[in-house]
């Protein structure tokens, strides 16, 4: 698997898309920091960007890479390699190279700006950790979609739809159901609802850092325990890990049964 990972990774590192992605984050970081000159504001803007864009790019990249490397995959399949290692290797190649672009692309401007001397470093590192998690989750989900759909166009369509659903529609339905059932105790429900969507989950993690003052304004005991103690942080990270592991399991499972 490590060999496949190595080749996929270097293959991607050479593709112009990685550079575009890298350059995008580099530019974003520079614009946010040096035109704005406000680290806290930059971190907040960055959060909005990361939570929406990283999943989108992870999804598109994952699907694209899968379909584009189809022949290469077939070449590998004829080699004495386990199927799970081929697909996990490719998945990790995509996820790691995307994460690298993200970390380095944002890291350079922030470091140049003097992040290490600032106390925003924790917010920033959390942002990067969340970004990496989201990259892994969404490229894994994208691989799942691509594995289940031979048709490229269909696969792309489903992938974009999934992103749209998790990034926007889900929250809309979520809000509507909260308003609809506002007469009932909802704190548990709302937390569970958050856990079921990796984008919401990551958002919550960042809220814990940026908006803890607002979150602690609510009476529910469950809320208080979740946001007021490290319980929320730990639970969120566990759930994010689950969100990474489950799609990976499905990749392994699905790839074993698939015909090429």
């Amino acid at each position, binding site marked *: 698997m490590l060999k496949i990972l190595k080749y996929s990774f270097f293959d991607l590192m050479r*593709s112009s898309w990685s550079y575009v992605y890298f350059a995008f984050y580099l530019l974003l970081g520079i614009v946010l920091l040096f035109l704005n000159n406000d680290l806290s504001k930059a971190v907040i803007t960055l959060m909005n960007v990361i939570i929406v864009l990283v999943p989108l790019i992870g999804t598109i990249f994952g699907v694209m890479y899968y379909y584009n490397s189809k022949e290469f995959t077939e070449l590998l399949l004829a080699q004495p390699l386990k199927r799970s290692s081929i697909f996990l290797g490719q998945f990790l190649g995509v996820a790691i190279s995307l994460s690298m672009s993200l970390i380095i692309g944002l890291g350079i401007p922030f470091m140049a700006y003097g992040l290490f001397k600032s106390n925003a470093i924790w917010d920033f590192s959390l942002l990067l950790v969340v970004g990496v998690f989201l990259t892994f989750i969404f490229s894994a989900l994208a691989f799942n979609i691509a594995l289940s759909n031979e048709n490229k166009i269909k696969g792309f369509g489903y992938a974009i739809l999934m992103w749209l659903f998790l990034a926007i529609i889900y929250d809309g339905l979520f809000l509507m159901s909260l308003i609809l059932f506002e007469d009932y105790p909802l704190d548990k429900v709302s937390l569970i609802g958050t856990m079921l969507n990796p984008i919401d989950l990551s958002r919550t993690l960042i809220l814990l850092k940026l908006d803890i003052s607002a979150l602690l304004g609510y009476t529910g005991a469950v809320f208080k325990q979740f946001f007021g103690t490290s319980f929320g942080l730990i639970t969120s990270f566990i759930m994010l890990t689950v969100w990474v592991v489950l799609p990976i399991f499905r990749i392994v499972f699905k790839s074993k049964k698939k015909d090429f």
Partner: protein
Amino acid sequence: MVEIIDLYKKFDKNNVLNGINLSIKEGGIFAVLGPNGSGKTTIIKTILGMVIPDRGTLKVFNTNIKNNSAYRHEIDYLPQIANFPSNLKVSELIKMIKDLRGKTDEDQNLISKFKLEPFLNKKLGTLSGGTKQKVNIVLTFMFNSPIIILDEPTTGLDPISLIRLKELIEVEKNKGKTILITSHIMSFVEEVADKIVFILEGKIYFKGSIDELKAKTKQQDFEHAIANILTKNHA
């Protein structure tokens, strides 16, 4: 060496393999023939483990290939369409496959045989179809495995390379290897194949030498023999 027992495979509602039984015990060149969509490639892919059969057993050197990948060390495969990662250079691809499968020195000979030296530092994406096919051949023949599977090996080759390929196949055959070939070029098949495996509607319709096929169809030459099978069955 290769033993296929009662193999079934369905794609959606389309029965592609309908109980294939095939046993190849000896070396030699086997041409797998059949009309389009008869299941040639599917058989080859099931042998390679790329297509997973619905039913039936497939053994290579007496080991069941289900959930196994190590047996593919015994097989060299030349895929039909050679599309490689376009960002890689030829030399890197060869290095990579060596890295994945094990060491070999045969690649140097093959590269000079097919005159690929000038292309070694070119990216695969920039190569012509024929050159790609040559690279494909190098990748296939550089390992000394007892079973070789060639899916349309002649695609895109110029006459000189075709001669080189035939020489290669001959050399490998003389080593006592089992070689499975699919091809649409009947003259090529007639020239190289020892035995024909003819597949029709997911079943083995005929297995035997070219002479036996001619005798069976009462035709004088090979191409007509094949055509005879097809017209008879389509009529």
